């Protein structure tokens, strides 16, 4: 056992009371990174070696100097009796889609490989102000466009610590893997369709997508501006609550950040689930498999082990006093991915037009006649296939002649998806739920390369998480067991707007109820 096996909450306490120094913690983190991470992601990486295939590759950029400086500052404050923040000495990793002043902020794209951020994103600024140690930037799908981290321009892409032959999920794959492998105690991710919850499920860690607007997006390189949510990745629910409590709250630099009070998530954590109404929906206990040739979808039962884990979680919560409400109708769940294919692409295309080789980032090395040719060459060379696909689709479905058929229709379907949740959570409604319990993902972690390239199938990996993004509501994924291949299964809880407290309470209650379960004793392969 090393310091990196403790929770962030415990480490911060030990640093605060002088039992540990922040520098000691940082050194334990760097040692772990050295042991498990392998080479960092880079552009134009050649063939993977056998050793590469056994490592995690969470990081693109290590910022050890920055972290040492922060650690020494924390230690100095502790020594001189000053108050230190709630994350004093806690090593964190940052998804490389956030700007951190003075460090490369690449979005895992060639387009921004040389971009040094001139300012720091609000959530990062708040973590650092709370005493966190910024270890560096972790890998993701290029511009967050994927569910496996394989589309990163920086290879080797991150591998799953539970089985390095499998993907960590995505797009916050580096975040989830770095926490699962104990390289960081916390990680900052983003969730646009499930990009925090799905990799958290695949890597056996806790991941929360807060309510849209709960955490500022200032300094986040935008994908889908109406869907993007920064949020915590942690090893347990208490750590996720601690991290969110530091980051949440209004921000003058993001007008969509909700200027409403942030509850004390830690104080209510142990509130329990007695009397809580937790729903199960048949629409979340099935999976949709698209047929790319016809566009038809097959509805199939959930894989048995995932179904069992979800029902087991319901039983565990019931034993703790929750009332389980079955057959909650969520009829529009099935439209989540098709609507997302439209809405997210329109927003992505709009956001990606700023990358033009003029102000910062990549510019073509080849000759050009004029501005237009420079744009074409720069964008053709700078963007990978996934950003290109999103731009093309976004332009098509929002074009004047097609917008009514696609974009406007998708936005109205989004209203229907939201109305499913409003009905389920309505205090005066038939079910009046406090939370909905679902599996996080339709499968456990899939093998590297198996799905990559099939953009329809890859998108359907988010089918159980994306409705929360359309609706804006908060969701959490917590580890719920292991399948017969020894891979983590994630359990998702969803709650009404700004009710993260409910999710932390229910997640914590489940964690406590399963504390001694055999599956909790199994460690990721890279740590065995």
């Amino acid at each position, binding site marked *: 056992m090393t310091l990196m096996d403790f929770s962030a909450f415990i480490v911060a306490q030990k640093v605060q009371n002088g039992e540990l120094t922040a520098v000691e913690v940082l050194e334990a983190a760097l040692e772990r990174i050295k042991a498990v991470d392998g080479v960092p992601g880079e552009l134009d990486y050649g063939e993977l070696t056998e050793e590469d295939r056994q490592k995690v590759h969470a990081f693109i950029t290590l910022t050890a100097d920055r972290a040492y400086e922060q650690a020494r500052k924390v230690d100095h404050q502790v020594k001189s009796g000053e108050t230190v923040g709630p994350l004093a000495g806690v090593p964190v990793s940052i998804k490389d889609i956030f700007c951190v002043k003075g460090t490369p902020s690449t979005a895992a794209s060639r387009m921004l490989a*040389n*971009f040094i951020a*001139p300012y720091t994103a609000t959530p990062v600024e708040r973590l650092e102000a709370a005493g966190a140690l910024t270890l560096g930037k972790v890998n993701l799908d290029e511009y967050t466009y994927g569910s496996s981290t394989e589309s990163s321009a920086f290879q080797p892409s991150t591998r799953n610590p539970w089985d390095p032959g499998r993907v960590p999920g995505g797009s916050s794959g580096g975040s989830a893997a770095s926490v699962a492998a104990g390289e960081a105690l916390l990680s900052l991710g983003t969730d646009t369709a499930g990009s925090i919850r799905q990799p958290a499920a695949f890597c056996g860690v806790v991941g929360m997508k807060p*309510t849209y*607007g709960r955490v500022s997006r200032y300094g986040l390189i935008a994908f889908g501006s*109406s869907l993007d949510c920064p949020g915590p990745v942690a090893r347990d629910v208490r750590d996720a609550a601690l991290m969110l409590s530091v980051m949440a709250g209004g921000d*003058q630099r993001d*007008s*969509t*950040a909700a*200027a*409403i009070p942030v509850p004390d998530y830690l104080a209510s954590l142990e509130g329990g689930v007695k009397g809580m109404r937790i729903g199960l929906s048949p629409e979340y206990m099935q999976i949709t498999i*698209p047929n*790319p040739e016809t*566009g038809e*979808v097959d509805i199939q039962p959930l894989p048995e082990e995932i179904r069992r884990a979800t029902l087991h979680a319901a039983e565990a919560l019931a034993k703790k006093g929750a009332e389980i409400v079955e057959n909650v109708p969520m009829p*529009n769940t099935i*439209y989540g991915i*098709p609507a997302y*294919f*439209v809405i997210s692409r329109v927003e992505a295309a709009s956001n990606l037009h700023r990358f033009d080789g*003029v*102000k*910062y980032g990549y*510019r073509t090395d080849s000759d*050009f*006649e*004029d*501005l*237009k040719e*420079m*744009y*074409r*060459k720069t*964008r*053709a060379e700078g963007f990978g296939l996934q950003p*290109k*696909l999103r*731009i*093309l*689709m976004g*332009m*098509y*479905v929002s074009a004047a002649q097609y917008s009514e058929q*696609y974009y406007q*229709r*998708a*936005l*109205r*379907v*989004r*209203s*229907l998806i939201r109305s499913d949740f409003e009905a389920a959570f309505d205090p005066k409604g038939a079910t009046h739920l406090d939370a909905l319990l679902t599996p996080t993902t339709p499968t456990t972690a899939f093998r590297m390369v198996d799905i990559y390239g099939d*953009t*329809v199938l890859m*998108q359907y990996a988010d089918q159980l998480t994306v409705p929360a993004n359309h*609706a*804006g*509501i908060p969701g959490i994924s917590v580890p719920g067991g292991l399948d017969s291949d020894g891979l983590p299964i994630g359990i998702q809880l969803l709650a009404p*707007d700004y009710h993260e407290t409910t999710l932390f309470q229910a997640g914590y209650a489940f964690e406590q109820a399963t504390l001694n379960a055999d599956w909790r004793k199994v460690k990721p392969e890279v740590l065995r």
Partner: protein
Amino acid sequence: MTDEITPELFEHLVDLAAFAFYPTEAEYLRKELNNQLKAIHLLEAVPLDSNIPPASHGVPYTAQIRSGLREDTWEPCDNPDEILAQAPQIEDRYIIVPDIPHTELE
């Protein structure tokens, strides 16, 4: 079933998006676009009453959650030259833009 995105339409979109492609890349992208559109067509089966509004965001954006506009005050930037230094081409602290396609008027 004919492809919704024909090679001609694809070329047009590529032009609008200010890209260029290698032929092999184009084939893959066009196939994926068409497959995604097939998935999108599932939305056509959704019965939509005329009273269902489009939702540009999920959570209601009410006056209570808005932080209001900032004071319109001048704030100095502490590193303008660092920002300028990231531009591929600058001259006398101006960002240089290549020639913009244009036609000389008679």
